[in-house]
């Protein structure tokens, strides 16, 4: 007797749109997903174990490599944890540089996240536009830090070096200086890139068809599942650790928290990310203003050569590009961290996949993965 059966399909680890090495097992009824199960661990690099055998400053380059698309924010989170543990006062100028870099990094990371989602939905051009603008941030970062993607720029207590001369630029810098001065980039970004994203994709009918109403995430489910960052805000929860649990000097900046509607869908997650880039640009502008007005060269305090934090424990909640980065650091008084736990937002968000996917089409799966914007380096650490 003939019988319809569900089709078990194995998406990944080699698949064009699983953002690295994610493997998702899917059961399909026709094109409709009835069951989804992510399988991770293909990029596990023992970050937590490795950190236990390194000194505190030596861990910083490894934090770059967890969420490799948002390296500065990770460094910042780790440095904040160590500083809180040791009670180090960070120079004001270093704080501003850190915040500015973190927000530029957030723009950079969101650009890639949005671009990759566009690519997954079939809009290849959007992806390449994202890369064009990311390239400009990277050339700025290269001049500031020496690295293009993994910087090792933040130091415990400060930053490695001051901004190079002329990189701030003036508020009148336009598009021609977009990859030479930060002001040039910000002006170019606000006047040119963001409207372009809106024209090309956000207001595109096909794009809206593909994302609106796909995988709605009610706010209470989002909170129960530990969602954070843009995913949580897209569900209408106005919660941003930069505002609600302010760290560093974020309470000195003016910016808004973009939120989606009550049942945030893929489109809301997209819009929230686009809006967040706009808010990050606002923060960068304020930081640039301060940095231009307050020149100085005190960017890192004098610390002992071997850092030995006192015995204790700290948990830092940090608003990374993808959500709440938690650094749980345990010190036993020696030069090496006794335990480092990296609570990664992508790892937590990936749990949502079995909740969000069933009932949607196979093509929506791609949109969902794109909209929660995972980085497998951070999922597996």
């Amino acid at each position, binding site marked *: 007797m003939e019988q319809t059966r569900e089709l078990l399909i194995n998406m990944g680890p080699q698949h064009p749109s699983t953002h690295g090495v994610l493997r998702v097992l899917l059961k399909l009824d026709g094109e409709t997903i009835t069951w989804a199960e992510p399988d991770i661990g293909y990029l596990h690099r023992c970050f937590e174990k490795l950190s236990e055998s390194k000194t505190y400053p030596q861990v910083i380059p490894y934090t770059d490599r967890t969420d490799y698309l948002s390296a500065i924010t990770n460094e910042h989170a780790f440095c904040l944890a160590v500083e809180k543990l040791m009670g180090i006062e960070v120079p004001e100028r270093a704080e501003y540089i850190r915040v500015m870099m973190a927000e530029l990094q957030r723009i950079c990371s969101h650009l890639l996240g949005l671009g990759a989602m566009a690519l997954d939905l079939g809009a290849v051009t959007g992806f390449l536009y994202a890369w064009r603008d990311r390239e400009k941030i990277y050339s700025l970062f290269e001049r500031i830090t020496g690295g293009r993607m993994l910087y090792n720029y933040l130091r415990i207590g400060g930053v490695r070096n001051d901004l190079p001369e002329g990189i701030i630029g003036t508020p009148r810098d336009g598009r021609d200086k977009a990859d030479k001065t930060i002001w040039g980039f910000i002006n170019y970004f606000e006047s040119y890139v963001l409207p372009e994203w809106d024209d090309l994709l956000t207001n595109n009918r096909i794009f809206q068809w593909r994302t609106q109403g796909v995988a709605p995430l009610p706010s209470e489910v989002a909170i129960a599942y530990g969602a954070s960052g843009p995913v949580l805000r897209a569900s209408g929860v106005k919660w941003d650790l930069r505002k609600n649990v302010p760290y560093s000097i974020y309470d000195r900046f003016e910016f808004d928290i973009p939120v989606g509607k009550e049942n945030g869908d893929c489109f809301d997650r997209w819009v929230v990310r686009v809006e967040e880039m706009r808010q990050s640009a606002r923060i960068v502008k304020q930081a640039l203003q301060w940095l231009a007005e307050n020149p100085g060269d005190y960017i890192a305090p004098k610390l002992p050569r071997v850092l030995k934090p006192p015995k204790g424990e*700290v948990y830092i909640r940090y608003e990374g590009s993808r959500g709440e980065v938690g650094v749980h650091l345990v010190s036993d008084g020696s030069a090496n961290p006794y335990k480092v736990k990296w609570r990664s937002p992508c790892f937590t968000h990936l749990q949502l996949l079995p909740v969000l996917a069933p009932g949607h089409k196979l093509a929506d799966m791609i949109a969902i993965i794109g909209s929660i914007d995972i980085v497998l380096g951070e999922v597996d650490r």
Partner: protein
Amino acid sequence: MEPLDIRPDLEALKAAYPAVEIAEAATGHFDIRVSLDQYLDVVRFLKDRGFNYPACITAIDWKDRLELVLQLYKLVVGSRQSPLVMVRVDGLPREGAEVPSVTPLYPGLNWHERETYDMYGIRFQGHPDLRRILLPDNWQGGHPLLKDFVDKRPRRPRLVRHRDTIVSG
């Protein structure tokens, strides 16, 4: 915005479970030390008092024992400086520890508990799907984040050619 005050909740917790030890750490969070048999009740109590956001769950290997650490906080829109509480269960055996799972209360801790099992070998009773998560399902080498973990896999030959082996000429 006033910083969110959770002291009333903690006092209520202390009143309900006198055996619980509550201390404020120097780094800003609150440590709630509970015994294993009260762990689930305390977490349930905290959830009822509005600690709705599961941040993380992990363990610490103190070389002679394991300690389970659960981080929670209140996610209240419009609040400020919501303090973190760490619910700690100390004195778990290093091998074959079993604790009740809080995944039914906080579904977001599902994978974090799996990771803790994967890395420390703590079994979570009542967990819907307790399997290894980062390591392969057929991994036999133990639990890597334990301090005495040794990688017993055969060493792969180094692929680096040493300078003295290069024959010149």
